[in-house]
């Protein structure tokens, strides 16, 4: 057990093991993604109220779900790196932010595209949509803060502080946005509620949620590998790697 933690602190080991993991996970995720999307896109019946536009659900919901989960991964990594000063956690936090931001962006854009045929408008200030926008800002904040620091060790710690403060605040933000919504506007759009999903729609949806988790993990691992290299340029093993690899 202890030696596992010790190994986690060793960049070359992490670099190698992430590479091995990637080699397996990437094809599997891509396969799942392809199956889920084609299934949903071409082999399911249209929703009786929304028609064919509902097919966006197979990208919209997975992206939203994984984007939200991603923030917790990032904040957890930040907390670990700040409290136990673990290098891996720092690297993982740095690697999560762009992936999470991209998924949030996808959720926003697909939701927005979906809104046009369904509600007749690209954007509404609904509680959940607004909190998704805030999530995007939180991700962008971490990325921008990291990029703004020259000293990457300091950058990692600064981002860790930020995401730790973020974890404390996230529940407050979501609660308040929810409250704001119910204060100002009676529920005009409900995602959850009555729309109990038909199993024929549910299976491809579940598959593509799993696929999105897989893609998220792959991008995370890839980013971590690149980040390890960037931080360890001066060390012997990276130099040997550069010399050896063609």
């Amino acid at each position, binding site marked *: 057990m202890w030696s596992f933690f010790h190994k986690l602190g060793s960049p070359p080991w992490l670099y190698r093991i992430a590479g091995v993991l990637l080699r397996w996970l990437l094809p599997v995720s891509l396969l799942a993604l392809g199956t889920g999307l084609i299934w949903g896109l071409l082999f399911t019946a249209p929703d009786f109220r929304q028609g064919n536009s509902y097919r*966006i659900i197979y990208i919209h919901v997975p992206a939203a779900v994984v984007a939200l989960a991603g923030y917790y991964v990032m904040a957890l990594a930040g907390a670990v790196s700040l409290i136990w000063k673990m290098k891996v956690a720092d690297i993982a936090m740095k690697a999560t932010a762009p992936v999470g931001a991209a998924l949030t962006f996808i959720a926003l854009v697909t939701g927005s595209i979906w809104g046009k045929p369904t509600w007749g408008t690209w954007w509404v200030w609904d509680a959940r949509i607004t909190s998704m926008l805030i999530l995007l800002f939180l991700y962008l904040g971490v990325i921008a803060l990291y990029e703004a620091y020259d000293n990457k060790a300091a950058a990692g710690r600064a981002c860790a502080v930020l995401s730790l403060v973020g974890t404390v605040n996230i529940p407050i933000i979501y609660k308040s946005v929810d409250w704001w919504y119910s204060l100002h506007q009676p529920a005009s759009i409900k995602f959850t509620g009555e729309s109990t999903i038909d199993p024929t729609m549910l299976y491809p949806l579940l598959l593509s949620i799993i696929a999105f988790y897989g893609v998220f993990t792959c*991008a995370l691992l890839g980013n971590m590998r690149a980040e390890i290299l960037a931080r360890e340029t001066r060390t012997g093993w990276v130099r040997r790697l550069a*010399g050896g690899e063609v």
Partner: protein
Amino acid sequence: MYFDSFKAMLVMDGHGAYVWAAYGLTLLVLSLVLAAPGRRRRRLLRELRGELRRQARHGTKEAAYASGS
């Protein structure tokens, strides 16, 4: 296959533009996200290799520094 024809699949009762745009954009962003780390990694290694080569030639720390390491 739900759709009868290729055309029907593209049009999707008038919602095709929305659906295909959403899927296209998603796939684009996902492929960028997946490709970015590999590109960055290869660039880093290439730069490092160049530096190592220069260093081997000049054999001085100064040269390594001047090369923008």
